[in-house]
Structure formats: structure tokens, C-alpha cells
């Protein structure tokens, strides 16, 4: 390693000596930049010498000084929101440039394309960009949120309303199946690859731009890890000029966006009684009305004024020789559910610097550090034990806290003496224990009390150091070292607790978990750009070396310590010197490294920006493969044509610019579990051990897990994309893309015939296809003092599995299961990934005659002999004599087939207004709020209107204890609801104080704004939120749209200020 670095440095040196030539004599040019519209000077405008990298930025008075070579001919001046202007350099004297407000500036934008940038006008791939300007002043905490609804091609759904929770991101659909993370796009931050879920550390305000590489041809530069798409994030850099200080802060309160309409105590008693009487059983609650409203469990755990704060301050500036950007951020969020144990705090520090000691060399680093601390309510979309699920399912009769031990004796724990300390509030009252609803459903107030203090923490250091050497014009040697270092863990105390007859914790424990990982990458590229007679060529070559892998962890548990609360708990054995060794447990894990070595080359060519071509190839070697399959090749090519630049194209005012694009690219996937799938690992212990002799000791056995699969190879995704970008009426931008991507060789561990004698091993078996259409629209117009901007996007996609496993008619891969309904999804070959799979119902039996008349093929056998009027009539799809598992079919699709977003910007004088919303549709949601295996669980009030002999018009089947007719205990499309929604995400009104006023106070800009987040959602769905991502909890499956009682999202009301000095 060391030797190689040395060699590399030597090589760099060699190139320098070889190509170092004295540059021509320079002279100094000064000038000013201002706005043509109002004459105001423009600070922060970029002034560059055309065709070179020589550039500077204007100071706050719009002045600049630039050292220019003698052969320089022209300057290019750019400023966000203004049209770029090119002026020839006068022989002497200063220049004055007046920029015009641009209507459409997108063509001159530069986009990040991976190992470089490219002018948007010559980009041939399908790349969507989100700029800092679109994100600033949005109160988002995670990057996924800032992308949601902003670009086409992305399906994003939050996994939970828990503060700081991640969202599920799918770029152009599902690319593969298998391990959940395989479908997560690759996140690259300033050239450093961070693993999925590892982007939570990033401070939103530090982001300069986000580029989404959607087509295979663009993503192929990231080769083996790009199959699920690539998202590039560039952080802000300093600019030469005066020191800039920016402060952005907001504060506000949040409330739950929705409250479910659950039965109150008397309604619950009524429903239970009617269920019991229908079953011929004695009533449980003789006088339902006497229970009144009872406990509103949602109210008990919801917080309608949960605070939310963010402060961010950045300082940037620099000179010709060096620039810097540094920022500090602080975020503190409180959840709207169980606020005492639902918190998120984050501190960020960033330093990005660049030094340019000489013309031919620059170096610097981009470094972000984050410390996070959070506590969560636990399983947020899971029916087993989360506080949300408990609040939905607990009966409203049980009091939250027993304030009258005589009246509410039924709600005091069994054998209270044994449990007294563990089940009381701080003021000595018992928490109500439900005698009706048990299992994992716990009094949420008690749960909160018992989890106080527990927290997760993380420290992340992500960044890179780089050097750029440009020995001759057009040639840049770039060398970078990047790293992600993470330390994280949790601290928890679990007290002895009694929740109900089936759930109690008999032994307390205090637990500490620590984990760390260090990933790094080294990349070196050489690029050369030259323009000759209209031919513009950029060549790039590079190699990279990457190491990442699983964390190393250690966990220590002390059982039965004397502590009773988190604050008392300690690991100091001096305090616990009496704690026997067998109550101190620890374990640790090692992760396997993942190494990738790469070589890549790229050609970008255009002729007069009219005929465009990009071709690239990447070769990746991965430690996850063996033998000759270690290396994979990822070629891609894309072409473009701009007919509007052709002489023959008629001059017109309608179509100002048109670019037609087509691309083809291959990307790969090397995420395989377990590690070392290509070699025959010999496993130890477990079902290999045996005992000999009377001594009774166990001999550890060893046997291979599975044979070698030396032909194990990469999953390959081949993508084709055609599209165009157009500018119409000088005000409207329009982009269209149609794509198809096919993944072959998807890795699966199939069920092997038992006669093989060995375990299953990964094989390249599956094939999957995605097709989609994407539209992006932008409109910007200035009408007098009013500026109007509209941005919208719509994406459609269809996914299908084209090949499963060896003759199998369907695939059951990461499919969700639901309580006693069993599996609720599977994938049909030829159909979309993980569709809902269950029974179809034909309606509700109204009379016994209908039940008796519903017979099988033989005309006599009753298909649903146990059904009675009010029960669901199930379709006999097999047309045989029974309703059984074979009558199930595909009854819905959890994957949205369309997603869209819309942003409207208005500015009038000093006022500005933003409205932003997004939505998706075409999918179904499994509404699984009620615990089906607990017959006594509470109901939504809609069940008050369930079928009864006197209410025959209901759409809901009858409620009967034990459900003998299986109306609710079969998975039918009764559980599916439309997932269509439109969510208004933000409405913001801002006011910028006049500059004449603020300059007196020493600030350049002072803007105040008021913002409402999640003001409303348009949907027919009756759960908390129709936006349901893939739950990270075990057993949830790799599926959207399964609602097990999600953490309700928050509506926030925020006030914020931006101040610039």
C-alpha cells in the first residue's frame, strides 16, 4: 500500500515536471457586475475567463479583480437567476457588466456527473438536479425528504413519523429482489460513498446540489454499485471575496396530522357485546353506556405542541489563494407521539476548504462531522408492542392511570405486591392494566415511563482530501482520499415490569452497545479537455480503490442490577461489587470487509454543442466474488442531438431549444449475503454437534454450509433511456424520458432438493424489468413586479418479474406476513414485485338462503358452510367444491405506479410565497391497524356501522366473537384501500426587509418567514398516513404499503429567519 502511494506520488511529480510550462504574462482586470433591471450591484457573481478555469467572484459591492492571461479574449459572467453574459476583454481599462434576469437559466447550469461536471446543455444522460436554492429555508432534516416530489423517477415514502426517521427511496422502481438494501440507491457525498441509511448525518443547509443519475449510462461510471441508481450530493464551497456569514433558524411546534376515529369506551362495550351476543355468548358489558368516553389512548400519547428547532450558521469566504466554507448546525426535534421517549438531536460541523498556492495546483478538503442523539418509541410500523399499535388496540375502558384503587381494582396488576414498584407512576399510582386486551399491547404510559432515558447515539465523520494538478491547459490530475468513519451505539435500561398476564419482564438489565466502522476510498483521475474547431473533447481515465464493510460491535449487559431507573443504572463494578459474574454478559461481532478495485475511462465529445456523445467503461473487481468472476465490466454510451442549433431549423418563438437524447448502459450489483458466497464455508456448531460418552460433554462439529459456487456472478442491469429536453416560449422547460431497465442474474438462495445434503447457496437466477415514463416541467415568468415559478414532475413506472427460480410459478421473497392471516404477498412471474395475494370477496351474504345456495362445482357442496348472513362471500376461483388457499389470487399492488410533485413560487416586491406538494397513486394499502389475533382489540368507529340484521346495507361484514364465518380472518381485498394521495408538504410566506433598512444594522439580508409543514393530505385512506415506506423492522418484508399502525406524521407551524452579513 505504502509502496504504491509512493509510486503514485512519484508519477504525479513526473507529470508535473513533464508538462510544467511557464504560463504567459498576466495582467489584472477590474470591473463591476450589476443587475440590469434595478441597477443593484450583484455580490457573489462568478466572473471567469472563457475557456479556462480562471475565475473569481464579485464582492458585496459587485466589484471584482481578476488576474488574466495575455491571451485571454473574453469573460463569462454568471449569477444565479440571471442569464450568463459573455463580454470581450477590452485592451485596457475596467469593465462593467449588466446582467439580465433570466427566465430560463437551466441550460447554462453545470451539473455534477460523477468524477466531474458537465454543462447541462451537453448532458446526454438522464440526470435530475436539485439546487440549494430549491432547498434553502425548507425545514427538512433528512436528504430524502428534500428529494421527495422534487424530481421525477424517485419513489420516496417515509418509514415513520418518528423524528429523524429515514425514508424508503426507490429510483426507477425495484431493480432486484433479495436483501432489502439492494434496492437502495448509491449515495455519494463529495465523492465519498456512504452506505444506505448513512446519509442521516448530513446537514441539509450544507448541500449545494443534489444530482440524481437515473439512466444506466450516467450511473455506469459507478459500475458495480450503481444498479439501483446513484444520487450525488455536493456540499457548499467558499467563494473568493468578502467574508459571508449566514444564519438560518426556525422554531415551531408540531401536532399529529391525524387522529384515528377509534371507538370510545361505551362504543367499545357495545361492539364487544354485539360480537358476543352474535356468537351466543353472555355479554361482557351489561350496560355499555355506563362506561362513558373512557380512555382516549391516542390523546394520552399525542403531543399537540411538540417543539422543533433548528439553527444553522455558516461562514464562508476566501481569496484567490484559498477559500473556505464552514458551518455549524443544531437540530432538536421532539416527536408528536410519546414525546418523552421520541426525540432527535443533531449537531453538525463542516469545514470545506480549498488552497491554490500556485496556478497549476490546488488542494483542500471537504469534511463533515456529526453527533446525533435520539430516542425512539421502538417499532414504529409494527403491530407487536409499539406504543402506536397499543394505543390503537387497547380497550378504552382501562384507565391510563388508576386514581381510585377500589373502583378500578380490575385494572391493578395480578399479585400487586410482587410488581408494585414496577407498575406505578412517580406519584405512586398504578398504571391501568387491561384485563381485556393483552399480549404485546401495553399501557403506553407505562411503556413510556419504563423507557425514559434510553437513547441511541452516533458520531460520523465523512469527508475527503484532494489535490488537483493542472500542469498544462485542459489537463487535470485529480487525486482524492475519502473516508467515512462512524461510531454509534445505544444505552438502555429495562426495569422489571408487569404489562399484562402474558407480558412481563422479570429481570432488569442495563445494556451498552458500541459499534464502529471505517470505510475509505482512494481515487485518482486524469482528465483532458480540448476544443478544436468546434470539436470539444474531454477524456477521463481513473482508478479507484474502496473499502467498506460491516461494523464491529460490542454489547455489554448487566442483569438484575440494583438500579430501578435509567439514571441510576451504571456499569461501574465498584458500585456493583456484589454483582456476580454470571449476571454480566457481553458479546462482540466482527464484520467482513468489502473491497472494490476499479478502473474507468470516459469520453465526452460534442461538436458545437450540437452533436453530443458520451461513452464510458468501468471495470470493477469485488471481494464478494471468486475465481474468474471477480471482475465485471460496465460499458455505456449515450448520444444527443440539438436540432434547434442546426442552420436548417426554422427560427421561431415557440421552440427555443430542443435536445434529443438516447442512452444505453450496464450497471451491476455485488451486494450478496452471506459473505463468501463463492467459497464453500465450513460452518461450526449448532446442528453439527454431538456428545460421546458418559461425561456428557458436547463435541463441536464442523461441516460445510454449502458447496462452492465459483460461477457466482454480478447482477447486471441493462438500461435504455430515450428522452428530450425542450425550452418553449423562453419560459417553459420540459423534459421527457422513457426508460426500460432489465436486471439479469438476480441472486437468490433457492430451496434445494434435500438429497443434495447441503444448504442453499446464492445463484444468479432471477430477472426483473422496469419500464417508465417521466416528465419534468418548469415555468418561470416575470409579470411586472410579480415573479411566478412553477415546477412539476410526474413519473409512471411498471415493474415485473420476468424470471423467478427454476420452474417455480411464483416468488416468495421478502414478502410481508400479517398475524394469523399468514403471508399477504407474493410475486407472480410476469407480474409486479410483491403484490398483495389473497382472497377476493364477492359481497356480503344477506340471507341464509344465499349462504346455502353458494355451492361448488358439483352443485351441492356448500362452499362456506360456516358462514351466516353478514359474512363475506369469498370467490371460488378454482371452481371446485371448497374455498381454500388455492382460491387466492393477486388482489392489489403495494407499489405506487405514479408519483408526482408540484412547486409554486411567487415573489412580489419583498414578499415571497412557496407552496409545495407531492403525491403518488395507483397502489393499494393493507390497512392492518387492528390486531386480528386479539378478538377483544378496539375498533375504528366505522365498525359501529358493520352489518347487522337490521343494517344490511353495510360494506363491512358482521362482527362476531371468534369470527366463525372467517370474514375477518381471511386475507381478502376488504383489507385493501386505495393508496392514492396528494400531500401538501409546505406552504411558506416570507418577507425580506428592504436592504436600505437592514444595511443600517449591518446585515445584507434579513428575511423572516412563516411556514406550515404538512398542512393537509387529500386521500381516502383511513389510517394515519397513506405514505408508508418499507419498514426496517424484522418480519415486515420488503414492501411498501403495509400499515401496522404507523407513527403519525406531524403538522408543523414554524417561524424562521435568514440573516446574511
Amino acid at each position, binding site marked *: 500500500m505504502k509502496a504504491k502511494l509512493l509510486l503514485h506520488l512519484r508519477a504525479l511529480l513526473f507529470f508535473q515536471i513533464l508538462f510544467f510550462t511557464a504560463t504567459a504574462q498576466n495582467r489584472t482586470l477590474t470591473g463591476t457586475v450589476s443587475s440590469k433591471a434595478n441597477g443593484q450591484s450583484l455580490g457573489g457573481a462568478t466572473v471567469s475567463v472563457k475557456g479556462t478555469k480562471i475565475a473569481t467572484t464579485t464582492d458585496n459591492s459587485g466589484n471584482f479583480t481578476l488576474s488574466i492571461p495575455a491571451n485571454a479574449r473574453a469573460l463569462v459572467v454568471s449569477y444565479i437567476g440571471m442569464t450568463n453574459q459573455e463580454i470581450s476583454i477590452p485592451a485596457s481599462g475596467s469593465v462593467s457588466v449588466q446582467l439580465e434576469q433570466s427566465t430560463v437559466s437551466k441550460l447554462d447550469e453545470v451539473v455534477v456527473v460523477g468524477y466531474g461536471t458537465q454543462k447541462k446543455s451537453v448532458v446526454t444522460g438522464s440526470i435530475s438536479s436539485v439546487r440549494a436554492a430549491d432547498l434553502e429555508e425548507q425545514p427538512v432534516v433528512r436528504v430524502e425528504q428534500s428529494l421527495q416530489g422534487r424530481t421525477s423517477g424517485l419513489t420516496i415514502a417515509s418509514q415513520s413519523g418518528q423524528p429523524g426517521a429515514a425514508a424508503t427511496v426507490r429510483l426507477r422502481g425495484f431493480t432486484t429482489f433479495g436483501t432489502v438494501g439492494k434496492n437502495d440507491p448509491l449515495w455519494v457525498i463529495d465523492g465519498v460513498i456512504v452506505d444506505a441509511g448513512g446519509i442521516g448525518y448530513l446537514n441539509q443547509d450544507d448541500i449545494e446540489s443534489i444530482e440524481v443519475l437515473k439512466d444506466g449510462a450516467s450511473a455506469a461510471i459507478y459500475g458495480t454499485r450503481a444498479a439501483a441508481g446513484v444520487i450525488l450530493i455536493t456540499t457548499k464551497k467558499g467563494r473568493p471575496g468578502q467574508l459571508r456569514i449566514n444564519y438560518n433558524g426556525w422554531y415551531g411546534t408540531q401536532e399529529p396530522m391525524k387522529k384515528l376515529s377509534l371507538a370510545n369506551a361505551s362504543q367499545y362495550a357495545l361492539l364487544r357485546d354485539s360480537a358476543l351476543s352474535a356468537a351466543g355468548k353472555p355479554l361482557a358489558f351489561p350496560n355499555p353506556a355506563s362506561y362513558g368516553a373512557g380512555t382516549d389512548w391516542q390523546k394520552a400519547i399525542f403531543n399537540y405542541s411538540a417543539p422543533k428547532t433548528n439553527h444553522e450558521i455558516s461562514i464562508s469566504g476566501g481569496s484567490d489563494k484559498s477559500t473556505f466554507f464552514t458551518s455549524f448546525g443544531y437540530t432538536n426535534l421532539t416527536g408528536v407521539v410519546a414525546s418523552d421517549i421520541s426525540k432527535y438531536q443533531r449537531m453538525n460541523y463542516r469545514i470545506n476548504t480549498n488552497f491554490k498556492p500556485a496556478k497549476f495546483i490546488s488542494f483542500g478538503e471537504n469534511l463533515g462531522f456529526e453527533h446525533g442523539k435520539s430516542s425512539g418509541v421502538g417499532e414504529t410500523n409494527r403491530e407487536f408492542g409499539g406504543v402506536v399499535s397499543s394505543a390503537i388496540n387497547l380497550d378504552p375502558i382501562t384507565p391510563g392511570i388508576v386514581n381510585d384503587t377500589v373502583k378500578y381494582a380490575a385494572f391493578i396488576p395480578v399479585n400487586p405486591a410482587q410488581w408494585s414498584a414496577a407498575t406505578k407512576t412517580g406519584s405512586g399510582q398504578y398504571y391501568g392494566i387491561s384485563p381485556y386486551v393483552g399480549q404485546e399491547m401495553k399501557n403506553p404510559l407505562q411503556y413510556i415511563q419504563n423507557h425514559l432515558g434510553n437513547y441511541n447515539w452516533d458520531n460520523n465523520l465523512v469527508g475527503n482530501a484532494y489535490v488537483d494538478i493542472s500542469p498544462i491547459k485542459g489537463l487535470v490530475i485529480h487525486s482524492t482520499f475519502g473516508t467515512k468513519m462512524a461510531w454509534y451505539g445505544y444505552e438502555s435500561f429495562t426495569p422489571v415490569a408487569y404489562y399484562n398476564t402474558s407480558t412481563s419482564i422479570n429481570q432488569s438489565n442495563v445494556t451498552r452497545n458500541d459499534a464502529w466502522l471505517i470505510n475509505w476510498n482512494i481515487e485518482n483521475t486524469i482528465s483532458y479537455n480540448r476544443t478544436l474547431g468546434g470539436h470539444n473533447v474531454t477524456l477521463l481515465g481513473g482508478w479507484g480503490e474502496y473499502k467498506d464493510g460491516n461494523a464491529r460491535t460490542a454489547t455489554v449487559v448487566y442483569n438484575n442490577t440494583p438500579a430501578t431507573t435509567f439514571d441510576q443504572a451504571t456499569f461501574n463494578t465498584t458500585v456493583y461489587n456484589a454483582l456476580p459474574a454470571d449476571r454480566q454478559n457481553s458479546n462482540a461481532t466482527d464484520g467482513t470487509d468489502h473491497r472494490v478495485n476499479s478502473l474507468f475511462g470516459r469520453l465526452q465529445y460534442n461538436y458545437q454543442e450540437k452533436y453530443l456523445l458520451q461513452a464510458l467503461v468501468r471495470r470493477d473487481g469485488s471481494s464478494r466474488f471468486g475465481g474468474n468472476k471477480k471482475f465485471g465490466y460496465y460499458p455505456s454510451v449515450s448520444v444527443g442531438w440539438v436540432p434547434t442549433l442546426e442552420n436548417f431549423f426554422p427560427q421561431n418563438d415557440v421552440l427555443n431549444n430542443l435536445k434529443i437524447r438516447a442512452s444505453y448502459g450496464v450497471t451491476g450489483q455485488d451486494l450478496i449475503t452471506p459473505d463468501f458466497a463463492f467459497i464453500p464455508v465450513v460452518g*461450526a456448531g449448532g446442528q453439527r454437534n*454431538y*456428545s*460421546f*460418552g458418559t461425561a456428557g460433554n458436547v463435541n463441536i462439529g464442523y461441516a460445510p454450509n454449502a458447496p462452492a459456487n465459483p460461477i457466482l456472478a454480478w447482477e447486471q442491469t441493462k438500461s435504455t433511456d430515450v428522452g428530450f429536453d425542450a425550452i418553449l416560449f423562453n419560459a417553459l422547460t420540459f423534459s421527457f424520458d422513457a426508460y426500460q431497465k432489465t436486471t439479469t442474474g438476480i441472486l437468490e438462495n433457492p430451496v434445494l*432438493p434435500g438429497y443434495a445434503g447441503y444448504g442453499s447457496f446464492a445463484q444468479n437466477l432471477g430477472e426483473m424489468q422496469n419500464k417508465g415514463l417521466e416528465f419534468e416541467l418548469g415555468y418561470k415568468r416575470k409579470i411586472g413586479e410579480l415573479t411566478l415559478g412553477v415546477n412539476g414532475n410526474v413519473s409512471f413506472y411498471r415493474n415485473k418479474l420476468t424470471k423467478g427460480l*427454476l420452474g417455480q410459478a411464483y416468488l416468495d421473497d421478502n414478502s410481508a406476513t400479517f398475524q394469523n392471516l399468514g403471508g399477504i404477498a407474493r410475486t407472480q412471474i410476469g407480474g409486479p414485485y410483491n403484490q398483495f395475494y389473497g382472497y377476493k370477496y364477492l359481497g356480503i351474504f344477506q340471507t341464509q338462503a344465499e349462504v346455502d345456495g353458494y355451492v361448488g362445482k358439483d352443485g351441492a357442496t356448500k362452499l362456506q358452510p360456516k358462514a351466516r348472513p353478514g359474512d363475506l362471500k369469498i370467490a371460488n376461483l378454482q371452481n371446485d367444491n371448497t374455498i381454500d388457499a388455492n382460491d387466492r389470487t393477486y388482489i392489489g399492488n403495494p407499489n405506487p405506479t405514479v408519483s408526482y410533485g408540484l412547486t409554486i413560487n411567487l415573489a412580489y416586491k419583498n414578499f415571497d410565497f412557496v407552496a409545495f406538494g407531492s403525491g403518488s397513486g395507483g397502489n393499494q394499502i393493507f390497512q392492518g391497524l387492528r390486531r386480528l389475533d386479539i378478538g377483544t382489540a378496539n375498533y375504528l368507529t366505522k365498525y359501529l356501522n358493520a352489518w347487522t340484521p337490521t343494517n344490511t346495507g353495510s360494506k363491512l361484514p358482521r362482527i362476531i366473537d371468534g369470527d366463525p364465518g372467517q370474514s375477518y380472518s381471511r386475507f381478502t381485498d376488504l383489507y385493501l384501500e386505495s393508496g392514492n394521495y396528494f400531500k401538501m408538504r409546505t406552504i411558506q410566506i416570507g418577507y425580506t426587509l428592504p436592504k436600505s433598512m437592514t444595511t443600517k444594522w449591518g446585515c445584507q439580508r434579513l428575511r423572516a418567514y412563516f411556514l406550515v409543514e404538512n398542512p393537509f393530505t387529500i386521500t381516502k385512506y383511513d389510517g394515519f398516513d397513506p405514505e408508508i415506506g418499507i419498514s426496517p423492522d424484522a418480519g415486515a418484508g420488503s414492501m411498501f404499503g403495509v400499515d401496522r399502525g404507523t407513527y403519525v406524521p406531524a403538522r408543523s407551524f414554524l417561524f424562521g429567519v435568514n440573516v446574511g452579513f
Partner: protein
Amino acid sequence: MKKNLVYIAAIALGTQLLGSCKKELEVNSQGRQTTDTYYKTPAQAFTALVAVYDRFGFQTGGLYDKLAINDVAGGDQVAGGGSATDINDLQVMQTWTLSSTSGPESYIWNRSYTGIYRANVLLAQIDGCGLDAATKTRYIAELKAMRGAFYFDLVWYFKNVPLLKGILPVDSLYSVVQAPPADVYAYAEADLLAAIPNLPQTVSIGSEGGRLTQGGAKAILGKMYLFEKKWQQAADMLKDVNGPNPGVAASSYGYSLLPKFSDLWKPSNKFNSESVVEFVHTSTSNGGWSDAGASEGNLICIISGPRGYSVVKDSVAPDYYSGYSFLMFTKDFATAMYGDPRYGATVANMDSLVATNHAKYNAAAAYGNTGFYLNKYMGHAADVASVSGTKELNFPQDEYEIRLADTYLMEAEALMNAGADVSSAGRAYQLFNAVRNRVGLAPTTVTQANIEHERWMEFAGEGQRFPDLVRWGKAATVLASRGFVAGRNEIFPVPQTELNNTKLEQSKEWGGTK
């Protein structure tokens, strides 16, 4: 010159990059061993042998084994448990509703084939393990003996099974076909014959009890000959196990009947003189519910115990461990056996314990409760593991696969069928009545009916009844009331998972083509 320098530098750099690539893609396997790095030392060879023995005595995490399957299938016991679907693989053996997708057949199938694979792995690797010649010869013999036993189980239960003589290559995974049953029997016989001379005559029971011996392998082979109706060969093979003076002196391998029948069921009485082939269990493996099949404890002990058992008068009542009420004897069987001297050691009459107020148990929770429990294998509180983990999965009682009374009766039966002298002067009479004599029963004549009765009483609850009924051709009549279908239920269906995507065919008995 300058140009050349550039080329040289470029080439040097290039080769360095390319050459280093592959090496750096080799990452630390964090302690993982592969078939290339393992099997290098005698200690490693031993661990591989252990993995084959693991399958030999394997009980599934579904809480049953061959003994339990045969017990329920034999008609004298019910599945029981907590409900009609509790350990469904056993319930279907009671109702004879097993099918290629539901039943215990996958357990039998996978146990044997995994064992065969593991044996084949070590046989292929054993030369590189650095074993001394004697140890290597012994290991090979043990591996072949077990492989023969696995194939015997397979061919007897399924009739039509693939015969894999080595490790199945990945590329022919789906092209395997079934072998004629005669070929499988012949292969198993050959394996055992090859093994016998190289196995030790006896082993030190303290450290090696449970390892296969010459006597054990001969008993397995003799039993297989008997099942194949190769009477003379069976008698000859079993004769060596039983010795020249059955019931009087210990055989040359040291086997003799225990004087007291009930001593056979004391967990501490491991590898006693009557034990020929024994599956070993221990209380020290700390088995838990996350993988009950990995426990080395005897799972039959917990499933056969009565539900909700508690002692009222502890000086009198047995210290049964509360279990799950499986494998109860039927009332018919209990009535038939009542009066036999082996009754007390075989059947635990829970209801009489309750009636005399010595103990309580939750009869209502036991599905199809009969009150007659499997005393031979019920767990006792005194034997409960001292481990801090899951006590119920760590009972130390061993299980007899073949014991001397069995080889006595098998040899007697073989001799009788081979036309040997069955009079009181003959060896068959001696063998047969040695078994009766041990429990104080008067001698009687050697006839098919008497042998059938003796085996029925002697081995009740030991998983012998079902194979006996099948080989005697009595299963269809004896088990008819339970739903046994003649011409089908004599064998198990090939599991559906074995038919998917493969060239295997379902047996004709089960509606297939084989």
C-alpha cells in the same frame, strides 16, 4: 528518450495497478474456514466425524424423531399434544393424512441425506487430515457404517430414493434420478460389510460411548437383512452380536441383558451392557428455543411428559417434569398390556396418580388425553439440566436404536423363518425365552404369533411397532381403524420439495410414476 520514459512510467504504473487489484480483493474471512483450508489436522477430522454423528442421533427442532414417528404410526400411541395440529407432523401419522407436503417425511429424508453428504465430505477429505493409519481406518469404517444406516432408513421409508455415492456436484444438482431399491440395499450392505472389520470391538464408554462398534454395525446389517427377508444372512450376522450363549453369558462384544427391565430407562444408565446402538443425549449443550434441533438434549423427554404436572405427595409420586402430553398410549393398548411385568416401566397411569391424590396434571389441556403416558422416556425433574438456559430442551436420557433384546428376538425370528430348529433344544428358543425370562415370564414356544406378541410388549414406545407391522404384512389390518391405506401407507411419499424442478418421481403408491 523523453517519450520512452513516459511509456515506461505509464507501463510501470499500469502493471502495478492491475497486478495489485486481485490481491487486495482477498479480504480477511474473519475466522471462516473453507473446504480448502479445513480438514488438515486430526482434530479437524474428528469435528467432521462429529457432524455425521449429529445426524445419526438427530432430532428435529420440530420436537420429534424417528422413534416418535414410529410410535404414533404403530397404532398403540396417539400424537396428543395441545391441539389437533400441535406437532402436525405427528398428528398426521395418527390419522394417516400425511401427504407429500405435510408430514414427517422431510425429516427422515433430510436427516439421512445430510448425514450422507457429511460422511461423503469427510471421506473425500480424510487423506489430507494427517490421521494415523489406525484412526483413519476406524473413521472410514464409522462413516461407511453410518452411511449404510442412513441409506437403510431411506430405502425402507421411501423405497425410491437417489443413490449418491459421493458429493453431488453443483452442476448435476437437478439431473439426479432414483435408483432401484435393490441397488440401494446392496450399497448399504456393502458399506456396512466394509465397515465391520475396521470398527472396534468395544469402546471406552466414559469417553467414546455412542461411537459405533463392530457389534453395532452387525446389528444394523442383521436388521437390514431381516427386513429384506434374507433370513439366514440375518441370523448369521446377529449371532455374532448375541453371542454363543444368549441369556447366559455375555457375548464376545460384552453384551448381556440387564437383569432388571426398568433399569433400561434410567438416564444415568448410559451404554449399559444391553445397549448395541445408542443415540446419545446430554444436558450440557445449553440448547434453546431459537434452534431446538441444535440441542443435544433428548426432546422426546419433554414432549412425552404430562401437561401441568405437579406432585402432591412427593414421597410417592414420580418427579415427572411437566411436558406437552405427546405419545400417550391408547386405552386399548394399556388394557392389552396390563398384567405384563413390563407394564409399570412402560406405561405411566396418570389418572391413577390423580385418583390416589399423589399428583395433579392438566388432563384437559392434553389433546385426546388417554391418561397413559410413555414412562420409558418421560422427563424427570431430577434429571433436569443444571444449565441456566432452557431446561426443557436439555434432558440427558439416551435413546436405544438397537438393544440386545431386539437382536435376540430378531435372530430368533430369522432362524425360525430360515427353517432352523425352534424346539426348546434350539438357539431360537433360547434367544426368545431369554427375553421373557429376564422379566420373569415363563418360557413359551417360538412361533410367529408369539414373536409378534413379545416384540409388541417388549418394545412398546420404542418405535419398533410400525416397521414390524409393515414387514409382517399386518399394518393394513391392525391400523385400518386409524385410516391406514394398504398399498400406500407402507411407504412415505417423496417430499414435494424433492420433486420440484428435479428428475425425481413420486412413488406409484402415492399416485406417482415410480
